[in-house]
């Protein structure tokens, strides 16, 4: 069953960004929303979550209610200079569960600490926010999302500015959390590796080229589809049981060719 579904949805800020689209988040699935910078991924995400009114079509909640969402924003959008401890930030995730007029209690602090331990940063609970590294900050934001006891975990560009090893560790963590908490995951990213090994379904988005396609990961990581998305030649190959994606020269008809510029490899 879908947790949330868009039908013939026209998304955009006053002006449609993409052609009318159908998109659902299935229970237990990992949906990767993939596209270049400025492709309209955030608008799509906001529409999916009901934060951006649709210009047309409709948003359905097959469960009869909105799913509980744990959200991990892009960490560079947050101000690390606030005089908050890690525990203060994770406790924010409990706010919707507590409701107005109720303060966090011992139980909430316990759950927040458990979330931190589960993410592998339990020892940071009392540390000030400004003292964290970028990777630690990212994990704290994931812990906050888990502390919200979500059904749907949404991550917005979680691996941007990460080296490949850190990216892999983070995605494995998300995969582990998904299994442990029986989550559905929406992963918004412009990085192919973040999708290749972890998503079960992929939505390709690019408002500039008018692209929106969604389907199973194997079907969507097709060189022709990716070429259309990136405007460059793309090669996809299986290497040692992993998916290797090479983005190279400008695709035929889009200008002169050159040597490969990006190699992305995943399992």
């Amino acid at each position, binding site marked *: 069953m879908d947790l949330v579904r868009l039908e013939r949805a026209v998304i955009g*800020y006053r002006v449609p960004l993409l052609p009318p689209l159908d998109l659902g988040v299935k229970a237990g699935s990992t949906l990767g929303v993939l596209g270049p910078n400025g492709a309209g991924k955030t608008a799509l995400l906001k529409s999916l*979550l009901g*934060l951006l009114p649709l210009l047309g079509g409709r948003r359905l909640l097959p469960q009869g209610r*909105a799913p509980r*969402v*744990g*959200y991990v*924003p892009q960490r560079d*959008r*947050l*101000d690390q*200079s*606030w*005089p*908050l*401890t890690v525990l*203060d*930030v994770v*406790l*924010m*995730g409990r*706010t*919707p569960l*507590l409701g*107005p*007029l109720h*303060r*966090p209690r011992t139980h909430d602090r316990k759950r927040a600490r458990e979330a931190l331990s589960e993410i592998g940063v339990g020892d940071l609970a009392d540390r*000030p926010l*400004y003292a964290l590294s970028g990777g630690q900050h990212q994990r704290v934001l994931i812990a*906050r999302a888990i502390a*919200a006891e979500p059904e749907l975990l*949404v991550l917005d560009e979680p691996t941007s500015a990460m080296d490949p090893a850190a990216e892999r560790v983070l995605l494995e963590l998300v995969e582990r959390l998904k299994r442990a908490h029986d989550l559905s995951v929406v992963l918004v990213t412009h990085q192919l590796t973040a999708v290749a090994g972890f998503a079960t379904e992929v939505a390709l988005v690019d408002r500039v080229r008018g692209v929106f396609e969604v389907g199973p990961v194997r079907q969507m990581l097709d060189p022709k589809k990716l070429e259309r998305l990136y405007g460059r030649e793309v090669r996809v190959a299986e290497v040692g049981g992993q998916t290797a994606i090479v983005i190279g020269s400008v695709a035929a008809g889009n200008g002169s060719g050159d040597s490969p510029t990006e190699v992305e490899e995943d399992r």
Partner: protein
Amino acid sequence: MSAFNDFWAGRELWQEPLFAGVLAAALLSYLGVFVVLKRMVFVSAALSEVSGVGVAFAFYVSAVAGVDPHTHHFGIPILLDPTWFSLLFACLAGVLFSLRPGHRKLAPETVVGIGYIAASALVLAILNSPRIAQEAHAVGDILFGNAVTVPFSQIEALLAVGAVGLLIHALFFKELLFVSYDSETAVVQGVGVLRYELVLNLVIAVIISVATRAVGALPVFAFTVVPAAAALMVTERLRTTIALSVAIGIVSAAVGYYVSWVESLPTGASMVIVASLFLVPGLLRLLRRGTV
């Protein structure tokens, strides 16, 4: 010692204005932590100015209606009382500042700046209107307060709005903190961001409006910025920051009032100078760390 004795001997004169200054400083220094962290320090100046428009507008309407403003409650219909106009205009500005412009180039601080500029122009235009030329000086006092003498009614008003404001913050502190720190996540998780931003800004607007009339625009602006900034530079926990900011505000108001009394200095300016001294430890700390 004789200066203090003289000061103490005159306590009948300063008890009320000093209390008003300390109370305003405590409230504003608390709210200032939110204002500074949300990077909206100009909100305070704009709200002071906008509530001033309300006062000036009340006098203008009274003049047009042929009502003598000096007769106050005996002669002015309650709907023309400058206090109500001041609160109304400040609240409208508070609502305006809570709205998120749907234009990427129009940041919230731009909206606040526009509010400040428009309010300043309106105050100038109304005060220079021939209709209230004779009242301009009196209007100026009402507009920007006078920390030397504060009517007890204004202390009562400050106590009332302060109590309501603090109660609201006590009840909704976690929501106000969440939407102030990370409104994007708060809205995704179903916390009513617009609602709580509105509550936060309305509390700030009402307290600034009442405090401006009691102690003046300059100390109000200063108390919403300086104590919080001084506290933030030397603390790492939010509760410590709030406690220190409030303490700095209270001490600055009290010591500033005393200094203004014994040195015959303007009261508001004296309070601001004392508050500014509390920035020194934080600046020294930054220098020691080599981050300046």
